[in-house]
C-alpha cells in the first residue's frame, strides 16, 4: 500500500472481574503478534505498567461496576475512547458478583470480613452499559477468542463484525453434537443462550449452563417447562438461571418462574 495509515490505539481496562477475558487477548497466540503490529497498545495494565493518557480509538472493558470510584472511572474512560467494547459476562451483564443484587450485601459483608466498615462497595454489580453508552458487547465467561479476534479484525477493516444472534443450538448442529436433552434427557440452557462459544460444553456431554447470557427473545417459559419435565426441582431451576448473567431481565424472570413450584 502507498501510505500506511496511523495505527489505531487500543486500551484494555479492568473493573470487578477475574481477568479471564483480558487473558483471552494475551492468549491469542500468533494473532496477538499481528494485532500488536497493526494496533498501538496504549494502555493494558495487565500486560504493561506503561499507561498512556489517551485518547484511545478502542477501549476493551472487562468487569462490572461495584464501587463509586469505578462508576466515576468508567465515565472517564468513556470520555477518552472513540469506541468502547464491553467484554465478558461481568461487563455485559454484571457477572457472578451481580448475585449480590438479589441478596443483602450488608449481611454477607458482615459475615465475611472482620471489619466490614473498611469495605466500601455499591449494593449492586452492574454492567458497563448501565453507566455509559457501549458501542459493542462481547458476551461469555470468558469471551471466545475467535470472537475477540473477529471484532478487532472487523474494526481494523472497517466492517461490521460477524457475531451470531441465534442460540447455542445452531452451533451444536454445526459441530455435529446430537441434542443432549433429546438423546440423554440432560438439562441444557442452549436453546435460550446466545451462541458464540462454539457449543463447547454440549460437545463434552454437559448441558449448556448459559454463560453467554440470554438470546434476545428467549422462550424461557417453555424451557422451564422442559426442565421440570426432566425432573429438575423448582429450587434447582431457580439456581440454574442465577449464575453468570443472573440479573439480565430474561434470566431473572426465568429464575423466578422456575422457582415457583
Amino acid at each position, binding site marked *: 500500500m502507498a501510505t500506511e495509515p496511523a495505527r489505531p490505539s487500543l486500551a484494555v481496562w479492568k473493573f470487578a472481574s477475574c481477568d479471564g477475558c483480558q487473558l483471552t487477548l494475551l492468549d491469542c497466540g500468533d494473532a496477538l503478534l*499481528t494485532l500488536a503490529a497493526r494496533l498501538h497498545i496504549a494502555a493494558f495494565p495487565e500486560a504493561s505498567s506503561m499507561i498512556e493518557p489517551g485518547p484511545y480509538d478502542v477501549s476493551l472493558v472487562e468487569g462490572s461496576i461495584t464501587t463509586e470510584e469505578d462508576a466515576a472511572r468508567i465515565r472517564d474512560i468513556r470520555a477518552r475512547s472513540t469506541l468502547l467494547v464491553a467484554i465478558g459476562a461481568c461487563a455485559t451483564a454484571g457477572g457472578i458478583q451481580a448475585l449480590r443484587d438479589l441478596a443483602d450485601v450488608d449481611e454477607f459483608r458482615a459475615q465475611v470480613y472482620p471489619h466490614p466498615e473498611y469495605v466500601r462497595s455499591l449494593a449492586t454489580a452492574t454492567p458497563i452499559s448501565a453507566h455509559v453508552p457501549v458501542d459493542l458487547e462481547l458476551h461469555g465467561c470468558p469471551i471466545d477468542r475467535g470472537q475477540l479476534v473477529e471484532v478487532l*479484525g472487523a474494526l481494523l477493516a472497517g466492517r461490521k463484525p460477524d457475531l451470531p444472534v*441465534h442460540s447455542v*443450538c445452531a452451533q451444536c448442529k454445526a459441530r455435529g453434537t446430537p441434542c443432549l436433552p433429546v438423546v440423554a434427557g440432560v438439562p441444557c440452557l*442452549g436453546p435460550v443462550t446466545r451462541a458464540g462459544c462454539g457449543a463447547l460444553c454440549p460437545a463434552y456431554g454437559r448441558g449448556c449452563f448459559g454463560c453467554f447470557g440470554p438470546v434476545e427473545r428467549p422462550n424461557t417459559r417453555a424451557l422451564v417447562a*422442559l426442565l421440570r419435565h426432566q425432573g429438575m426441582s423448582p429450587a434447582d431451576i431457580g439456581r440454574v438461571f442465577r449464575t453468570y448473567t443472573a440479573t439480565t431481565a430474561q434470566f431473572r424472570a426465568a429464575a423466578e418462574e422456575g422457582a415457583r413450584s
Partner: protein
Amino acid sequence: MFQLPDLDGLFAALHADGYRIVGPTVSAGAIVLAELDRPAHLPYGVRVETAPGHYRLRPGPARQAFTHTAGPQAWKEFLQPSPERLWRGTRDDEGFRVDAAEEPPRPTALLGVRPCDLRALGILDGVLGDGERYARRRAASLVIAVDCTEPGEACFCVSAGGGPAARSGFDIGLVERPDGGYLARAATDRGTDLLARLAAPEASDVEVTTARKAVDEAAARMGRRLPEVDLRDLLTRHRTDDTYWSAIAERCLACANCTMVCPTCFCARVTDVTDLTGEHAERWQRADSCFDPDFSYVHGGPVRSSTGARYRQWISHKFATWHDQFGGSGCVGCGRCVVWCPVGIDITAELHALAQRDRS
C-alpha cells in the same frame, strides 16, 4: 434380485473403485452419518426408541444394521456441506486476486439411504441441482438405498406420499433380512456393474416374496400420519390465524433444531470475513434457518419478528408454498423434526390440530 450374505463384498468393491463410504454409525448416543471403513462400523445390534423430543439407543437384533430411523443428521450435510468456503481473495501491490478453486468432490457412496431420504435427495436435486458445487458432488455420489422394515414411532412417510420401499433415485437397493443377509437390486448401470462384480447368486422367488412382504408390512406400522386434507389449502387459509400461531409459539424454543435436521431444508447464508492483516478475505457459506432472528432481517428489523411467524413460515413453506415454488410438498415424512424438537412439538399433531380447528 441378488443375494448378499453380508456387506463385505460391496464395501471391498466400492473401496476398490475409490469411493469413500458414508453411512450410519453410533456416536455420542445417536446413530450419525460418517465415513465407514468396514461393515463392522455400521450400527449392528442397535435400534432406536423415538418419540417427540426423545431419542434413545436400545439393544436391537445383533445381525441387522438398519433397524433405526430419524437420526440427527440428513444426507444434505454431504451434498451441501456447512460451512464451506466459496472463495478467498488476496490483496497485493497489483490489486485483489480471487481464488475460487475447489477441491474436486471425492467419489462418495451414500450407504443406507432410506426411502424417505431418497425422496429428500430428489427434492434437493430440484432446488439445488443448478448449483455447480452441488451438481458436482451429486454426480460423484453413488446411492445405496435400504428399504425400511422397521419404521419408527415418529415416521409418517406413507401419508407424506412415499413408503418403506425405494422406488427410484438409487443405484443399488437393498433389503436387509433378519439373518443379516441382503437382497440387492440395481437401478442404474453403475449399480448393475457393481453387483455383477460381486458374483452374487440370484435370489429365489420365495426369498424375494418374503423380503417384499416384510417391507410392505412396514407401511402399516408408521407411528404417525398426516391429516387427510388439502394441507396447502388449509395452511393458506389459516396464514393470518394469529391465535393459533401464537399458541404454538408459547411452546416453541425457536432453537432451529427442526430445520437443521430436516432432510429438505436447504437455506444457507453467505458471510465475508477478513483476517487481521487486511490482506486476505474469504467468503463462506453456512447453513441457515428461518428460525434464526437474522434470517428475515432487512433494513430496520426482521420481517418475521415473532416465533409464531417463524413457525408459520416453516410449516407453510414445507406443506404449502413449496408446491408453488418447487412443484410438490417439501416434507417426506422422515419424522426427524418430531424427534429432535427438545420440547417435542410434533408437526403431524400440529397439522391435525389445525385441521380440527378448521372443521369447528
